[in-house]
């Protein structure tokens, strides 16, 4: 017997074993007749708006396409954890869903990673696409000119305030602050005259994540001047600007003067759910800088039904820093339905997108999800215009609105902003020091694509 035989045998056995072991991974239980949909489920167990909507569309889809199935994959997590989870799912063909709900804040980053498939070929033959407003069409367009998702609505941001508390404090119920100082003054008045209520909520810190960065910080920053975060003309991120430090100083003031939530509540990852389903509807909070979608929690279908909200809550636009033109500021985002590059059922997934975006369903979700319409046919729908008193107001903010820089590095920049906010909230660092730390982290995230501003 040749001495090499045992070796060959052992090697062969190893290879065979390895082959059988790894072969078990090819079938993942996904069948070509099933569309698997990954979406975010609210961390509040009372909120099931998206779940209920998808359930109803699922029924329609399965009726219209006999033999086809829809599998819903709800991911109940806070936003940061949701992003991480879907990115990991999309990394492998065995776990990739067929349809994924993507936040426009992350979409360019995920496109660059090769997680998503372009859908231009489908859009070409889809009559409904012409109804989408240009900004919505651009929301999921990448730097390569291709489109990677169909938005199902957008949002704007402003100020919600509680008229009952304002009356008690002797403030006008048709309040419209002209600058940042007006907001702080109103909050100070409330603190003095209506003890026991929280005067002002501005989301902050790493816990609430993007909610804090967009609803809180950027609503301030974009009121300090043009292109305060990213200079599109030069293709560079802005560092060291006075507007940045001023915005941090505002956050710092709110918490140093105890005008905001208790610090530990403000930094809680579930702050947004708590504010919208507890403190606002229970009239514990006077002024809330928040999204147009906050109202969806108070509808009968929401997590904290509150019929009196339409008479109790007033809305105001967020003013610019000193009231400089255009006087008002808002931020917009939104979510899109996208098809992962590693999905094996792209065609069926597209069919599902069409089902989600029939005119009837588009109107239904825009109303139930308290979205701002991003289709002209939905925007004219009488049901939408009557859906809630807030809708008209928040739709009017569209002309003042800004979009976040849709760039792959944005998520990392956002994370650095969250940390800067957290350090001025806790008082660990002053606005200057926190801005300096941000500049350093910006360098790590985007390298040399930085422009310094005085």
């Amino acid at each position: 017997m040749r001495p090499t035989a045992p070796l060959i045998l052992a090697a062969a056995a190893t290879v065979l074993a390895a082959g059988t072991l790894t072969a078990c991974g090819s079938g993942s239980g996904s069948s070509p007749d099933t569309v698997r949909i990954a979406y975010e489920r609210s961390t509040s167990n009372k909120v099931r708006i998206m779940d209920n909507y998808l359930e109803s569309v699922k029924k329609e889809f399965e009726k219209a396409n006999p033999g086809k199935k829809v599998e819903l994959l709800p991911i109940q997590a806070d936003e940061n954890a949701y992003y991480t989870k879907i990115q990991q799912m999309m990394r492998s063909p065995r776990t990739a869903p067929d349809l994924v709900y993507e936040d426009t804040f992350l979409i360019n980053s995920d496109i660059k990673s090769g997680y998503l498939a372009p859908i231009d070929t489908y859009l070409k033959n889809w009559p409904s696409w012409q109804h989408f407003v240009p900004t919505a069409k651009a929301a999921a367009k990448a730097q390569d000119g291709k489109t990677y998702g169909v938005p199902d609505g957008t949002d704007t941001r402003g100020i919600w305030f509680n008229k009952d508390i304002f009356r008690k404090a002797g403030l006008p119920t048709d309040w419209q602050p002209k600058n940042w100082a007006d907001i702080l003054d109103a909050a100070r008045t409330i603190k003095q005259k209506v003890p026991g209520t929280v005067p002002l909520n501005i989301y902050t810190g790493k816990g609430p994540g993007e909610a804090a960065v967009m609803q809180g910080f950027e609503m301030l920053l974009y009121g300090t001047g043009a292109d305060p975060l990213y200079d599109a003309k030069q293709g560079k991120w802005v560092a060291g600007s006075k507007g940045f430090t001023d915005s941090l100083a505002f956050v710092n003031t709110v918490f140093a003067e105890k005008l905001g939530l208790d610090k530990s509540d403000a930094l809680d990852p579930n702050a947004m759910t708590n504010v919208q389903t507890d403190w606002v509807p229970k009239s514990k909070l006077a002024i809330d800088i928040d999204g147009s979608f906050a109202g969806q929690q108070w509808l009968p279908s929401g997590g904290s039904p509150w019929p009196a909200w339409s008479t109790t809550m007033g809305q105001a636009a967020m003013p610019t820093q000193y009231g400089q033109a255009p006087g008002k500021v808002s931020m917009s985002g939104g979510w899109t339905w996208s098809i992962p590059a590693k999905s094996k059922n792209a065609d069926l997934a597209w069919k599902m997108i069409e089902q989600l975006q029939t005119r009837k369903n588009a109107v239904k979700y825009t109303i139930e999800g308290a979205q701002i319409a991003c289709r002209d046919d939905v925007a004219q729908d009488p049901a939408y215009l009557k859906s809630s008193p807030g809708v008209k107001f928040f739709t009017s903010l569209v002309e003042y609105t800004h979009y976040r820089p849709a760039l792959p590095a944005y998520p990392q920049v956002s994370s650095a902003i969250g940390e800067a906010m957290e350090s001025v909230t806790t008082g660990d660092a002053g606005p200057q020091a926190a801005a300096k730390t941000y500049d350093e982290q910006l360098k790590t995230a985007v390298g040399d694509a930085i422009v310094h501003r005085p």
Partner: protein
Amino acid sequence: MSTPATGPQATGPQATGPQATGPQATSPQATSPQATSPQAVVPQGSAGTLHRGGPLGWLPITPAVALLLVFLAGPIGYCVYIAFTNMQLTGSSSTDFVGLANFRRAFADPEFRNAVWLTLVFTVISSIIGQNSLGLALATLMRRASRPVRTVTGIFVIAAWVLPEIVAAFLLYAFFRREGTLNAILDQLHLPSQNWLYSLPILAVSFANVWRGTAFSMLIYSAALNEIPQDITESAELDGAGGLRRFWHITLPMIRRSVATNLMLNTLQTLSVFGLIWAMTRGGPGNRSETLPVFMYDQAFLKSFIGYGTAVALLLLLISSLFSVVYLRLLKTEV
């Protein structure tokens, strides 16, 4: 959590279509003809070739070796490789080899230094001092206690240990919260309230870890104390040694080995605690309770720097091995 949840794709995410999911690149067609069946090479009537040291002695363990290679060594090797690249979870599709850049970045990163410091504080307070001393104290006291007391104490202490980490974490979160149980009790007693999760987060999570892990030390020490022969203790008592002296001069030297073993297991467990801290504080506020595992998660999954996060994981491994070396030396020295 040290390995990514998905199969490695060094080719980048554009590569569509099913790929090999394991890190090895074996191809099943490597089977050579003479290896198709074992009988082909086993000579007639030599059943003895399968004994130890025989030519086919390795055959029975090959499946196990293959398993280990595919599911253990592969991912670990892949992790080491990632630590030297700039892989990102999102925002970049290319992965380049960057040498020691991640490690240089770590040593220059004040947040990393802060995480190392907090990890040491957390480990020393909660494991070396807390779990270890409390476990020994409980074990010693329980030897003298009556049976019912022993049973009840044992049930309570061990219950804290068998609870899943995340359940324990939420219990303690609810206990320490500003509107939590502890403050409700303090209020009843008219004592000032606390907000440790915000003001002293590293202490709050250390306390939580002590509460959770003491049972393990207690069990190890109970077993060790039972090993001490009664007659030695009795003769010491006759010689007039008091309780403390007996403990210091007789008990401790006799259970020295258990102490070292227990310290080693405890320390290694505590160094890698993630879920408890994550659920209680998320490493916050700021980064005042961001130990290395939390820092690692934050960098790899929230900031998407998978390469950097993995490099930090390797450094954590290094710190663990330093502790292990110290304890092993303790075990070696003769009484």
